[in-house]
């Protein structure tokens, strides 16, 4: 989302405008979800962290110092809650591999069901292969790409807040990860 637009929406939402708030949820919700997913939480934890980030955002709405950076604020809040979940898991669980819990929900989304129609089968297969190859990338690449693929595309400030990495490292890592993914797809003959 455009920063000036975000700043104006935050101001309106703080003044009580529900439509402005809804626009923020639609514009920044996919970013928050991407951050949560990038950290490989279980579905239940992912849902709670997503809610926590939005509840806090509502709570701090009128007090944000830099309204136009609301996306980075949400991304950073989600990241910190994710890290708490991972920390608690390490403490209580015999394994420290959170990805053992990382299963994308089995239930098909409406869009997925549409893809299952015959005409779309080929496209569906391509999307699935792309996703499968993406999930087999190393953790760094998976994290970065999962955040970058939020819609609308996040700014690098937001990506930086989402993952706790320097803005300057995002471009080079993105390039390396996308090229790695492409070569995996080409090896499978689907590139």
């Amino acid at each position, binding site marked *: *989302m*455009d*920063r000036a637009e975000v700043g104006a929406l935050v101001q309106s*939402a*703080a003044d*009580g405008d*529900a439509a402005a*708030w*809804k626009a923020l949820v639609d514009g920044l*919700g*996919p970013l*928050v*979800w*991407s951050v949560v997913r990038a950290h490989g939480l279980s579905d239940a934890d992912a*849902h709670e962290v*997503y*809610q*926590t980030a*939005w*509840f*806090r*955002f*509502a*709570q701090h*709405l*009128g*007090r944000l110092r830099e309204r136009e950076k609301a996306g980075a604020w949400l991304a950073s809040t989600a990241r910190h*809650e994710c890290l*708490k979940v991972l*920390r*608690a898991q390490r*403490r*209580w669980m015999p394994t420290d591999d959170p990805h053992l819990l990382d299963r*994308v*929900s089995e239930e098909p*989304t409406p*869009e*997925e069901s549409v*893809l299952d129609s015959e005409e779309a089968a080929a496209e569906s297969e391509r999307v699935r292969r*792309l*996703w499968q190859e*993406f999930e087999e990338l190393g953790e760094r690449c998976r994290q970065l*790409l*999962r955040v*970058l*693929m*939020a*819609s*609308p*595309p*996040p*700014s*690098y*400030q937001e990506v930086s807040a989402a993952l706790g990495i320097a*803005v300057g490292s*995002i*471009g080079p890592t*993105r*390039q390396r990860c996308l090229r790695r*993914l492409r070569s995996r797809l080409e090896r499978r003959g689907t590139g």
Partner: protein
Amino acid sequence: MSGTHDDGVHGDGSAQEGPADGRFGEGELEDGLLEEELRQAAAILDPVPAALRAIAVEAHALHDLQARVAELTFDSLVDALPVRGAEDAPRMLTFDADGVTVDVELTADGLIGQVMPPGPARIEMLSGPRRFARLTADDMGRFTGQAPPAGPFALRLRTGGEVVVTEWLRA
């Protein structure tokens, strides 16, 4: 809503990382296309669940002009060293608003807390926009209650003529 990275860093960062042989821009377009393909795949295979979007939309109601926010300043989950073998150790939380402190101890059985400066308070335990329970702090500022429900919770306190809400937190 812009369809590109909007802080200008994107272009700069990429320029510095052009291939050493000077063929700058090689593959840039393809990178962008692949990223866009991933974006579409994510929208299909791992979108924001509709129920969560609805909860976030409703959360606008949590914006509370009247209340001061008590920020989380201590969380044993983060700020304390783990104690080996003490797996059911209570979670200790401290929230601070200017001049009002709320200490909370969470166990599987319930919650106990203390408002400082000590004094009576009427307390609501919030679970999203819903009220989950009412608690009362005694003259010493002490209160007890059942464990918060699953999901994020907050405490809303009326004490000495002001309203304080703790930062939202997962129990």
